[in-house]
């Protein structure tokens, strides 16, 4: 199973095995990771699973997957940066084994 590292705003990190095919938001929610809210459940309707892709992974993960994700990022509570993504739109795969995402200071 690919493993994903979630780094909280205070620097604490958790590395979890996430089933390929799941998304990075669910990976956090189902494992009790604080800092990702994901209140709409992945419908691109809330911007509460905002995360920053670690610099080493930005090229591999890429930017927003759609105009809808780009639009919705505009409603994020914390600062939106070039490496900002919505975690629900990042599907876990073997290619992303080792991915590191950083959580913002707040989701709303």
């Amino acid at each position, binding site marked *: 199973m690919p493993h994903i590292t979630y780094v909280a705003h205070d620097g604490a990190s958790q590395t979890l095995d996430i089933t390929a095919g799941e998304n990075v938001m669910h990976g956090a*929610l189902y494992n009790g990771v604080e800092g990702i809210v994901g209140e*709409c*459940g992945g419908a691109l309707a809330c911007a509460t699973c905002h995360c920053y892709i670690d610099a080493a992974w930005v090229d591999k993960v890429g930017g927003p997957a759609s105009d*809808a994700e780009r*639009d919705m990022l505009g*409603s994020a509570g914390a600062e939106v940066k070039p490496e900002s993504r919505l975690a629900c739109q990042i599907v876990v795969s073997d290619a992303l084994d080792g991915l590191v995402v950083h959580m913002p200071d707040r989701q709303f």
Partner: protein
Amino acid sequence: MASRPVPDHVPPELIHNIGLIESPEFLAAPHDFMAALHDRCPPIFWSTGTQSAGWNLIKHEDAFFMLRSAEYFTNKGGTPFPRDPANPFRLLPVEADPPEHRQFRNVLDPMLSPQGILRLEHTIRKLANDLIDEVEAKGECQFDEAFGRPLPVSIFLDLMGLPQDMRDTFVEWAVDLLHATDPAVAGRAYWAICGYLEGAIEDKRKRPDDGAMSRIINGQIDGEPMSAQDVFGFTVFLFIAGLDTVFATLNNMWLWLAQNPAKRREIIARPDDIMAINEELLRRFAVTFSGRTLLKDIEMRGVRMKAGDKVMSILPACNFDPEVFPNPLSVDFDRKRKPILSFAGGVHSCMGAHLARLEIRIGLQEWLRRIPDFELKPGFTAEFRPGGVVGPEHLPLVW
């Protein structure tokens, strides 16, 4: 029913008897009425209506604050639903607060996630087409009876792992429970539903499957099996939550579609934009409200509210907040995407939202593919029913 007395800490200038849910002005055109609240009322006011007594919020920002601040606003005992004193079950997950709440959500969220519901897409498309088959050649139908009601009921049965031959019985129960004006009729339906679901739970304990009911039965909270009372409350809640809301939403949308041929053609001409179209229609035709009780005193926009006060977000009005959605009543499929409140928000954000979106999207696609032109039956004027779910009672269509 008499109004509750207004507490002393509510300033007189903030008291507005707006007639939400029940006044003739509301029932004539509820969405226009709720949009106009932004001109008529301050952003936070105390409503003295019999059904909506308490603080009312109409700003997008304030509703999200309420929905996202479980430390101030509790859901406990917040659902006005009759219960047997001998079996005082909670409706779950809605009446649980964090952190317990997340454990209940984890039982069904994987099944109801965008990926989880994809397995239902084929079934829903077939059900929608079966229903259209029955009316297409007739050139007319009562949309509510022919499509709006049976579609979500069939899907509910499928999701729960209950037999489709119960469809008409469930439709009848749902109509009696949620629409009967005679409380005795609603009461009988309620007991019939509870009795049936209790039997079905027993049956699923003996013969588990991969449906939602078996998942609930096998659900674990704090590593322990869910109690029989919680299993029951979870199952009853899914029945109540899923059926009337989608029904009312479909009726609202089809009432509008029947009167807006140019928009119908636009939807048909833009198949690739169906997600954005669906979201805009959901914004424009939200059907429900979200109530909480304050756990501690709080001040919002200079208004001081006290622990124990009821607070309700008028979600359709929040979707018409002109600061967030300019020209809010116009249906514009090219709006910049912002969070809508039709499915509420925060941890209690509607768990069936993806399923509802899928049902409505497939409904739009299949109906407009097969019956692209239709209108209201001549002489018909929509009558909205009073209550917590906003939609026209009947919808006769001709084509």
